[in-house]
């Protein structure tokens, strides 16, 4: 059963130069208990997607078209009031900037328990007890509940963020670059924590990152996003097939593999205000065909549960 099912989602931003097509027809679903990693370069629309699921887009952004089904209900149609019941309660999010994501003048305990007070009928005392539990589960001593965030290190803040996101036992956790600004060792600690909580709580996870290796270590499935489109969707064990995914994969050093430095993907990311008619990746692709300029490839299933949007694969597959 899928918990999130996104159909032909289009999310645009109003800018001075015109409509910026941040997400341009995205289709994918996330099954219950599954963890999906979404990778792509900055500006590819992955954060926008996370924000649109919770309908927390900035004022300039809006959902132009499409549906986001959560347990069969379309979130796009829901009112702000209805969305508030879902946010933090059924779908939670952890942001990148853990440094500033906590309110400096409220205690950790207040900030973890406030979600409970809103979404459940718990009394303050009960909520505080639950917050304590939640803090312990992320590996922080419960006597820190009465402390303020400024006394915490970056890694600890991110743990608190995870605790407060999970305190209402949501069905789905969206983690937007949860380890990006953190040190290597702390990064490993947080990823381990996410992996553990995922199993303990049977959580569905949507992990958004630019780092392919983070996805490889935490997720069951991988989604490669480029220029507001999904180029590939695969099980994590499968080897990636799209030329872009391959290049991306190559640009991450693998200390188990050969010591070769790739040249990188030459060229610049696509213009999302006036996108080309063909494949978005075509200008930077070293394997492009004539058809790539004219026609946009559709996402097709090349083998079981492995979708790729590339003309080359369609022709070779057929």
């Amino acid at each position, binding site marked *: 059963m899928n918990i999130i099912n996104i159909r032909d989602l289009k999310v645009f931003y109003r800018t001075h130069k015109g409509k910026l097509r941040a997400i341009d027809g995205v289709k994918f679903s996330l099954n219950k208990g599954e963890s999906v990693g979404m990778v792509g370069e900055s500006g590819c629309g992955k954060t926008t997607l996370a924000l649109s699921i919770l309908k927390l887009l900035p004022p300039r952004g809006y959902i132009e078209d499409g549906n986001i089904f959560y347990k069969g209900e379309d979130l796009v149609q829901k009112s702000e009031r209805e969305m508030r019941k879902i946010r933090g309660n059924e779908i939670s999010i952890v942001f990148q900037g853990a440094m500033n994501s906590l309110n400096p003048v409220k205690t950790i305990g207040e900030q973890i328990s406030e979600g409970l007070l809103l979404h459940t009928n718990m009394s303050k005392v009960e909520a505080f007890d639950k917050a304590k539990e939640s803090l312990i589960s992320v590996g922080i001593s419960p006597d820190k509940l009465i402390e303020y965030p400024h006394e915490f290190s970056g890694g600890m803040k991110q743990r608190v963020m995870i605790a407060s996101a999970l305190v209402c036992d949501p069905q789905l956790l969206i983690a937007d670059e949860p380890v990006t600004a953190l040190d*290597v060792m702390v990064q490993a600690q947080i990823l381990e924590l996410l992996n553990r909580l995922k199993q303990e709580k049977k959580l569905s996870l949507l992990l958004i990152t630019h*780092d392919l290796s983070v996805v490889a270590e935490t997720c069951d499935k991988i989604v490669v996003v480029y220029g507001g489109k999904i180029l590939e969707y695969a099980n994590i064990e499968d080897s990636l097939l799209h030329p872009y995914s391959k290049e991306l*994969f190559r640009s991450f050093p693998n200390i188990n593999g050969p010591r070769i*430095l790739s040249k990188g993907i030459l060229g610049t990311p696509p213009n999302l205000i006036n996108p080309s008619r063909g494949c978005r990746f075509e200008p930077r692709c070293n394997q492009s065909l004539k058809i790539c300029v004219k026609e946009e490839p559709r996402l097709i299933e090349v083998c079981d549960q492995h979708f790729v949007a590339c003309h080359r694969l369609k022709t070779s597959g057929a």
Partner: protein
Amino acid sequence: MVKIEIKNLKVWFPVRTSFLKSLYSKKHQYSHAVDGVSFKIKEEEIFCLAGESGCGKTTLAKAMIRLIKPTSGTVRYSGVDLLSIGKNEFRSYRRKLQIIYQDPYSSLNPKKNVFNTIAEPLKVHNFIKNFSEGKDIITQILEEVELTPAESFFGKYPHELSGGQRQRVSIASSLVLNPDFIVADEPVSMLDSSVRTEVLYMMLRLKKKRKLTYLFITHDLSLAWLISDRIAIMYLGKIVEMGPTDEVVSNPQHPYTKALISVIPRPTSGVKHKKIILKGNPPDSMNIPAGCRFHPRCFEAKDICKRAEPSIVKFNKNHYVACHLLSQKRKP
């Protein structure tokens, strides 16, 4: 040939104690950012300094090119003691020792266009008399960093460039003075992954062409592994392990190095390797633990580690390690 050699380099920063305390106690507190480091970098070598943030790697590198004043120790560049010469004498070495910064958004003056950014050091060092004279040099250097057509970049301001392009401009302005020793302080950590390899690739190409020596600073061991000849792992102002990159990565001896290598994320799933995740807080250079600096977080710590600080010893050819366990293993 040794390009640059440091011996027992220390950089201590005085810690601002409270106003009152400074009245009644004369004792100054210091943050031991770099606490006695020695190594040599050979000509045309890529030497990598790796470690967690706050371990002192950037401070050390900046002290080596006299951007920060070291507390004690020596820095020899091509045989000259850089720290003992006067300001004016040092000026002629200034252009030989350059640095590339991490953040391409703050390393360029937002009010200067590309041309002026690159021309200014030329003019200050009397390579050119006025800005218009530098046109050929600047065109050439921009082409070298793959910003073509060069003329189209002359009038651009930093905010009109992408992160990768800014970093290229930054590299161009460092290279225009024909330096031979470059400190690269996490030059790609703020760039997108695909741009990252592009810039690294270019840096290696420039190294070959211009016969540069790099001191590469990174917290990302996989990057270090990818490009460097030798590597030094730093922890709390000291080097804990140093040696040829291949050997250190494939056969780490210090527990800290072992842990760091084990947590490197691999882009391939499947082969699950065992991770050594260190507990405890990241190091704080103001409260350096007694004994081995690493012992509070070490998973193999013994009694001796709490008492005595290990010195760095040869493990085998060119591979040095500072750990008690190693010498204990060897004794019997």
